[in-house]
């Protein structure tokens, strides 16, 4: 699936990523007992990001998941671990494309996406690393829903 993020075009195997997440969603989300906090969706909703800021927000979020989330999500369940690493690999290649686009100045960060991403990092840092990473992984469908909403 090709995503048009401003001037950037990123192809992602969304069906595989979705299938991988669906297979582990219940297990991952059941490890996140904190219902009153969200990393991605509160207080700011991803769905309110302006289209001009979508590319930068996607780049920051993919970097966030690659650098801060997947590596802290090892579990004792090898099935879950395999699915996580498969999703991580898909994110790695998407992040590489977004980085190239960013370096070509086609993925500029506006004030809004900078502010929103700062809030996401604050939400993340408000929890201990493992809880924050597991909660972020459990919210992957929020990111995927946002990506797909207006391809």
């Amino acid at each position, binding site marked *: *699936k090709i995503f048009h993020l401003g001037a950037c075009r990123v192809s992602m195997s*969304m069906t595989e990523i979705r299938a991988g997440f669906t297979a582990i969603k219940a297990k991952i989300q059941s490890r996140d007992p904190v219902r009153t906090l969200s990393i991605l969706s509160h207080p700011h909703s991803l769905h309110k990001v302006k289209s001009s800021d979508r590319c930068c927000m996607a780049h920051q979020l993919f970097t966030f998941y690659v650098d801060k989330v997947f590596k802290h999500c090892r579990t004792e369940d090898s099935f879950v671990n395999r699915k996580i690493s498969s999703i991580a690999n898909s994110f790695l290649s998407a992040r590489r494309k977004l980085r190239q686009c960013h370096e070509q100045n086609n993925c500029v960060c506006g004030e809004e996406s900078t502010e929103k991403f700062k809030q996401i990092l604050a939400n993340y840092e408000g929890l201990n690393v493992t809880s924050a990473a597991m909660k972020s992984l459990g919210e992957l*469908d929020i990111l995927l829903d946002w990506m797909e909403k207006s391809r």
Partner: protein
Amino acid sequence: SGELYCSLPNPRNVRFESINMKNVLHWSAPEGTGDGVLYKVKYAIYGVGKWIRKPECRNINRTWCDLSSETSDYEEQYYASVKAFLNRTCSDWVETPRFNPLTDTKIDPPMVSVSSTDRSISIILTAPEKWKRSPEEESLSLLQVYPGLQYNVSVLNKKTKKRWFFSISNNTLVVPWLEPGTAYCVSAQIHVSTPLLDSGFSKEYCITTLKDK
């Protein structure tokens, strides 16, 4: 009010059942309890701090509660919870898994309308609408909710039993080069690739092509 001592077994299998984003909370009665059990329900938006009571589902004896109105924003995710009461005792609150209306709903088959000439049939498909509070509320087709929505269409020649399958993105299909005076039956399904959502196939709509001029 003083909290009762909660020794009643818990409601079981607490979950959302959703069709076209009509989101209804269902559960089974606590094990070993006969009639007379009452329930109350609350729900929460994931990431927001408070539970919200559902007054219409307070002290009810049925084992479902329609939370469609409360969960109609499909950009949010939700939890719901049920507590049982019987003879001055109660159960614990029992929560659903996190509910994402966008990925956790089921979709009805499309509506199918068929017309024919002597050598072709024309099929028009209509995706179901998202649940809405009242008939006056503006309709939202699931086609708008799922931009990648497609239709799988099956066409059966009743005489030869030969069947064709088509996968289309727009909602009309003309099947040419058919035999005059022959019955054809059409059935259709909705397919969304991501998130992966497939409706069942619609019932069959049969039509006979006109006889040769």
